């Protein structure tokens, strides 16, 4: 008796070989058969006619660390078809962590990943200090698989205390960090994450940035003992420095035989040579036998802002930029002063040209009917101009209205498509679970299919599936995932290739203490199975299944 029988699907097995028609049988958490027309009985049958049956998607760059402690499903990742997430990226993980360092680490998470305090405090109980106990707290409690990284910053905090954010480590401290990392890897960590750019809530560099090269080299040697991943945030703001990091990662990769990955790498028309130069260097290093996987996100970059907080968005409009830096009360006053208003509007819309702000979308508003509309359209309806409306709405809503400039970067499919299709690019960098009050980090997989498979044709369906399943599992060395093949773990996502997409970005209040975040729902995903159990379906929503495991083992 099978547990689940998926009938008549278009099977895309994650290896890149062509799609084919057939059934899939699942038993005891494993793929019992892939292909054929199965006659055996099953406790549950799923008719997948017209749909693609693929390995569950793997998201290699998330920050679901805290969320998973009170949201076993890492919503809405699972409903997008993601069955395995890597967390602990960017030098930040919840373990190993002594209890006295918790506030320190939470501060970093808040600053870097823009996550609210309530996500860490009160929402769950900290039951661990060691990585082993952290993993134990996850086991049996999660609806999708977790491949956890150990963060370099907490490693340093554990060994060096407050000195972690002040100086290089001594040889003895490095040796202690090596032992600690070894413990993490033994307990199921899939690697180490570090960062060269992040700052804490006081804008001081995070502990990992105080490490000298010999420390990273020593930790990489421990990764080498296990063949595990080094994840890095390089100085992405400068192409030249990033190139130097690529070279450095390549040296670590070759010296210790380890895979390495870095992000973000995104395409911007303003730095046209950035991606080309970095990819050329990446290719050179791969040709030497190094593994330096650039992670590239699928979605374009939107910029959002309100008049409440100074944003560089206005830097090209000096008058707006300056007024925006005034104290709140003074700003509100100025915005209602006829002379200032006129000056602002004339500066933004010289000679009545209304182009400057017409493309801006209303991100959130007390008036729900405004959300998602452009200032241009609304201004036309109301017989005003976009700049005038921007000021009026901001005043009306007490500066508490956000605007969004969509697709400001990484937005040209003709450039991003071939990059995603590049064999040396690791599709990832979603940052899922982070920056939750700025934008939605979910649905990048749906966007991959809608924009680069269906619309752009830059990847075939098979290639796209492979990029986020088979390739990801192979790059990270995840034991028996990422492929539909007999004997592998039964992580399966069933979706409609004609409709899979990400939904609109919407604010919701589903964080602890009714906290707000932006999310995107999925469309076109039908069924998500984790380790042989139904975890989510379009028909029934989330189930009570907690079949997720630590995916490193």
């Amino acid at each position, binding site marked *: 008796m099978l547990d689940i029988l998926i009938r008549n699907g278009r099977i895309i097995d994650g290896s890149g070989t062509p799609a084919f028609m057939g059934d899939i049988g699942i038993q005891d958490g494993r793929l019992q058969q892939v292909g054929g027309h199965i006659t055996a009985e099953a406790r549950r049958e799923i008719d997948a006619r017209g749909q693609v049956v693929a390995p569950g998607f793997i998201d290699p760059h998330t920050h679901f660390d805290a969320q998973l402690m009170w949201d076993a499903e890492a919503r809405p990742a699972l409903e997008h078809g993601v069955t395995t997430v890597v967390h602990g990226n960017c030098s930040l993980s919840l373990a190993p962590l002594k209890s006295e360092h918790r506030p320190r680490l939470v501060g970093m998470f808040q600053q870097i990943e823009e996550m609210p305090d309530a996500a860490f405090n009160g929402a769950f109980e900290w039951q661990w200090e060691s990585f082993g106990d952290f993993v134990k707290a996850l086991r049996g409690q999660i609806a999708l698989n977790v491949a956890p990284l150990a963060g370099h910053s907490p490693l340093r905090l554990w060994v060096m205390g407050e000195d972690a954010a002040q100086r290089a480590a001594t040889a003895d401290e490095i040796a202690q960090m090596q032992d600690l990392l070894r413990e993490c890897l033994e307990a199921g960590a899939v690697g180490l994450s570090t960062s060269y750019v992040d700052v804490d809530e006081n804008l001081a560099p995070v502990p990992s940035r105080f490490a000298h090269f010999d420390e990273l080299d020593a930790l990489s040697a421990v990764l080498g003992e296990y063949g595990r991943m080094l994840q890095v945030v390089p100085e*992405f703001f400068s192409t030249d420095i990033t190139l130097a990091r690529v070279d450095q990662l390549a040296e670590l990769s070759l010296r210790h035989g380890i895979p390495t990955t870095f992000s*973000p790498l995104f395409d911007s028309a303003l730095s046209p*040579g950035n991606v080309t130069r970095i990819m050329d260097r990446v290719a050179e290093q791969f040709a030497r036998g190094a593994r330096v996987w650039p992670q590239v996100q699928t979605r374009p970059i939107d910029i959002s802002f309100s008049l409440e907080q100074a944003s*560089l968005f206005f*830097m090209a409009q000096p008058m707006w930029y300056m007024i925006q830096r005034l104290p709140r009360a003074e700003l509100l006053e100025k915005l209602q002063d006829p002379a200032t208003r006129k000056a602002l509007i004339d500066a933004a819309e010289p000679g009545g040209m209304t182009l400057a702000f017409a493309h801006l979308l209303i991100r959130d508003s007390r008036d729900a009917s405004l959300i998602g509309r452009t200032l241009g359209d609304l201004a036309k309806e109301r017989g005003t101009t976009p700049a005038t409306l921007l000021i009026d709405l901001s005043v009306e809503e007490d500066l508490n209205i956000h605007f969004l400039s969509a697709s*400001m970067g990484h937005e040209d499919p003709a450039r991003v498509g071939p990059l995603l299709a590049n064999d040396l690019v690791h599709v990832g960098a979603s940052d899922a679970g982070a920056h939750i009050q700025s934008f939605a980090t979910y649905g990048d997989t749906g966007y991959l299919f809608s924009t680069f498979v269906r619309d752009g044709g830059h990847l075939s369906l098979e290639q796209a599936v492979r990029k986020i399943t088979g390739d990801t599992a192979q790059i990270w060395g995840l034991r028996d995932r990422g492929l539909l093949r007999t004997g592998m773990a039964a992580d399966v996502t069933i979706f409609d290739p004609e409709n899979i997409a990400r939904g609109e970005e919407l604010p919701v209040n589903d964080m602890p203490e009714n906290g707000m975040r932006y999310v995107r729902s999925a469309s076109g995903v039908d069924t998500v199975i984790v380790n042989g159990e139904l975890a989510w379906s379009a028909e029934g929503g989330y189930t009570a299944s907690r079949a997720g495991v630590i995916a490193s083992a």
Partner: protein
Amino acid sequence: MIADATVGPGHDGEAVLVVRVRHENGAHDSVTLSAPAARKLMDDCDAKDLEDLAGQPWQRLLSVLET
């Protein structure tokens, strides 16, 4: 020398300042600055306007990047 500066996208959804540099040997490069770094650069250069950045020595970026 700083050639120009433009507002651009940051991966975290915030606006950043992309500063383009032209070196004496003809090489081009660009550096992306977050809001605090951009403000510091403006201050260091006594710039009121993005256009004021053009022509400033590229070394101005060094102290800014260290923050």
